[in-house]
């Protein structure tokens, strides 16, 4: 196993350009799970980013919150402005694992790990976040909602690093995040959903019900058009159009689909006149 320890972003990008097979490592909260038992991963070569200090800070601009490539969940939990303005980031952050994980896990790491159950991704996507990728070839910006194309497949080239996540600052009149796991903390999401409404329209983002975290356009259409919904079952056709939950070790397709419908129905009952 070898580990390369760049001290700056420029150095990191050059190193990665020279060897795109390097596995970037941030906090290690995904990679190091069962590390001693996974002896095969000890054969890999890693690009450790923990020394690239410039990626850690986040900043508030006039119209955006910009998360750094190494900004952690805890960094945001400790930021009062986030509680006031972008509370779904807080809801999601405090339901990731435990505080010991929140102090080490990064929003960007969560994005590039590309788990269908990723908890940071739905809220970022519901806030219309944009992913900034950099390489020696330049910089590109990809809306998070278009970042994934298939299971673990994303619009990131091997020589690119996520250096920023740009979150628009908007007024929202609906902000909901629901995470359903096996227990109150330290739980992998069985089914989750983030919903926002602003002048930009409705956003409905679900996780753990498809090969990747995704928006639910058919459900969003129902909300935009004010279609009548008389019970959770009325949402099922749209849900089935948007997502494809499976049976796995944690839960069942039937549960995921049904609970997603029920969460949406009950949580939106008070804010959607078309819901009865």
């Amino acid at each position, binding site marked *: *196993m*070898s*580990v390369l*320890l760049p001290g700056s972003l420029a150095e990191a990008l050059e190193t990665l350009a020279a060897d795109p097979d390097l596995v970037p490592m941030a906090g290690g*909260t995904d990679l190091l799970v069962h590390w*001693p038992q996974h002896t095969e991963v000890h054969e890999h070569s890693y690009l*450790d980013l923990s020394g690239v200090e410039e990626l850690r800070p986040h900043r508030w601009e006039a119209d955006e919150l910009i998360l750094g490539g190494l900004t952690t969940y805890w960094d945001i939990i400790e930021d009062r402005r986030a509680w006031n303005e972008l509370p779904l980031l807080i809801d999601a952050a405090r339901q990731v694992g435990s505080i010991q994980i929140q*102090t080490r896990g990064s929003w960007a790491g969560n994005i590039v790990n590309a788990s269908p159950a990723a908890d940071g991704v739905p809220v970022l996507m519901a806030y219309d976040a944009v992913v900034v990728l950099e390489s020696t070839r330049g910089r590109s910006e990809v809306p998070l909602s278009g970042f994934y194309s298939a299971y673990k497949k994303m619009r990131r080239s091997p020589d690119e690093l996520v250096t920023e996540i740009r979150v628009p600052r908007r007024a929202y009149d609906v902000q909901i995040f629901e995470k359903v796991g096996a227990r109150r903390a330290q739980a992998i999401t069985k089914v989750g959903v983030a919903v926002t409404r602003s002048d930009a329209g409705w956003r409905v983002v679900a996780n753990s019900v498809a090969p990747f975290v995704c928006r639910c356009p058919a459900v969003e259409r129902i909300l935009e058009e004010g279609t009548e919904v008389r019970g959770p079952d009325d949402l099922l056709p749209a849900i089935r159009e948007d997502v494809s939950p499976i049976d796995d070790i944690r839960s069942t397709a039937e549960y995921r689909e049904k609970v997603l419908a029920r969460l949406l129905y009950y949580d939106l009952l008070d804010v959607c006149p078309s819901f009865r």
Partner: protein
Amino acid sequence: MSGRRNDPIRISFTLNGEPTTVEVSPWERLLDLLRYRLGLTGTKEGCAEGECGACTVYLDGLPVDSCLVPAYQVRGRLVETIESLDPEGMAHYHARGTTQCGACTPGVVMTAEWIRRHPNRLETHTVRELMAGNLCRCTGYDGIIEGIEGALEDREAG
């Protein structure tokens, strides 16, 4: 920047207040470094996956699962383990049944003492939420929560 296969990495960091320099293997976890190389066996391994919190230490003053921290990542940083805590501060836990078998206890105490030092976090979080990263199989958590509440009252009073 080191480069070649399996090369050990020399790191300097502050451990329990003392400057420490050591060579680590690239695949060594902070937990392994503490327990097997530095003889600090107070920090325990319970799951190897960041679920149980028995391996909790402070990294730059924040609680982390040391089983998920590559040892080389602590270079230039502050690491504190259970061995750095003042035994005098354990009285509340001792009085209230916070420990039974003791296997989760060092991790529990580390998180509990962090809460005690940062009570402002209780404006937004409950004690139970902050402790949810420390699994205990013996107590059902009441002894732990009561120990922490006792410690917090004392802090207010004192």
